[in-house]
């Protein structure tokens, strides 16, 4: 696409602002739906906005081993999520498609896991280190699955360009798209782990390790971290929808864009229902589960390389 650079930047900025405005609303929806499934009234839908504003007004205590790294980890995590908003096509073309290709998206997703690692290292207490060791184990098993999904899309589309590879290209084979369907199943089963919700939210387990890496954060930095977590849910859902649920993307601009966000909200609802009805897995059970899924994903990669 030969759209002018300024338009691309503006579209990216619009994406980022929309994600920032919508993320607490999705979290509120998640909490309200969880409460309704548990037969209780639940907080008002605007509760996460109140939470974030209250956290901004609290005192900022710098504590832990390395306070400078604490600051760095927080800003880096929010920055990584928002730069993903500039790269993923959300209802229209990918805003900064000239700036990188799908491998950049894979690395940015790995970087958001590294941010949690930095946050836990900056705190330096026993619980934080336990939390980040579990996060690293999960990441080793999990990031290859998403990378394989994106690469299969690139194989079928024939290029690493963002627009081509990320718009439903896993289904673009002659005949029945076996690799696409296998990968759809694999990602549906492991999506909860990417967005860090029950049953796979082992790093931020409140009851077990006292919120692990986030233990030493207070006030505005905690607000930014929570914001980053909420935005992560939306961005990953957008990526999932653009990879695996592309039907209806060719509609003209306002309709196609609204339809895209409707699909994203549907994915958020699915995440909520699964999160409210399951219990948390232990780390060894989770690793065994992901190892099985990784084997199936590798099989899908081999099938894709043969053209199926």
């Amino acid at each position, binding site marked *: 696409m030969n759209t002018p650079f300024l338009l691309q930047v503006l579209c990216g900025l619009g994406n980022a602002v929309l994600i920032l405005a919508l993320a607490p609303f999705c979290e509120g929806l998640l909490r309200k739906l969880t409460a*309704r*499934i*548990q*037969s*209780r*009234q639940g907080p008002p839908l605007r509760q996460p906005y109140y939470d974030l504003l209250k956290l901004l007004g609290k005192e900022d205590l710098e504590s832990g081993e390395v306070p400078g790294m604490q600051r760095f980890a927080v800003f880096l995590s929010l920055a990584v999520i928002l730069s993903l908003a500039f790269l993923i096509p959300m209802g229209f073309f990918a805003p900064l498609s000239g700036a990188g290709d799908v491998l950049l998206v894979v690395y940015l997703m790995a970087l958001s896991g590294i941010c949690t690692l930095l946050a836990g290292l900056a705190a330096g207490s026993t619980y934080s280190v336990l939390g980040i060791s579990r996060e690293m184990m999960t990441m080793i098993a999990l990031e290859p699955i998403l990378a394989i999904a994106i690469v299969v899309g690139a194989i079928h589309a024939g290029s690493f360009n963002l627009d081509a590879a990320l718009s439903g290209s896993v289904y673009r084979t002659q005949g029945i798209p076996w690799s696409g369907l296998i990968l759809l199943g694999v990602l549906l089963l492991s999506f909860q782990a990417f967005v860090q919700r029950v049953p796979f939210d082992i790093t931020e387990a409140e009851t077990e390790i006292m919120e692990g890496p986030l233990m030493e954060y207070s006030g505005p930095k905690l607000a930014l971290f929570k914001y980053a977590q909420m935005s992560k849910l939306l961005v990953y859902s957008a990526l999932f929808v653009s990879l695996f649920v592309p039907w209806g993307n060719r509609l003209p601009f306002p309709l196609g864009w609204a339809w895209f966000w409707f699909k994203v909200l549907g994915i958020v609802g699915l995440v909520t*229902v*699964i999160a*409210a*009805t*399951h219990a948390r897995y232990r780390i060894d059970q989770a690793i065994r589960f992901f190892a099985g899924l990784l084997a199936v994903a590798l099989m899908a990669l081999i099938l894709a390389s043969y053209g199926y």
Partner: protein
Amino acid sequence: MSVLSKLKEAVICLKAGRVTLPYPSESRPVPARFRGRPLFDPAKCIGCAGCANNCPAREILVEDLCQEIRIIRYLGRRCTYCGRCADVCPEKAITMSPEFENATNHIGDIQQRIELFMSTCQRCGRCFKEPGFLDQLKAKGYRFDDVQHERWILRSQAYLATEPTVDDIKIDLD
């Protein structure tokens, strides 16, 4: 598949509706014989100090100000709402009311204080108080808890010192 059974579970829970009691706007009636805050009725109290003798948390303080005036003060801080004072009172002047909404930001808000006239004996005209201070300490009915500073005094130790009733243990907290 376990995911399907979990989704069925979600549908079943949704059918239960909302069971939340919207508490500050609506409240449930308390069960019968519920023991809330004790209420002292000064019209019926005869000043026998039976409640103070029997309180397990020593929350009722009694002091004889002078020959005829006896102060009974109920501090609500450590009351465990056991109801022994109401059981023991010979005139049924204490009732355990069903009030449980006692939260406050100043702990002195829950206290109740009664000042009573104690009458003299109708035959001999003497009051129930010995004239001398040492004789007063030996008399069975004389009470001298420090109502103003909220300290109860052990009657077995016949000294009115300025010592606090609970040991203030000095610990160094860094």
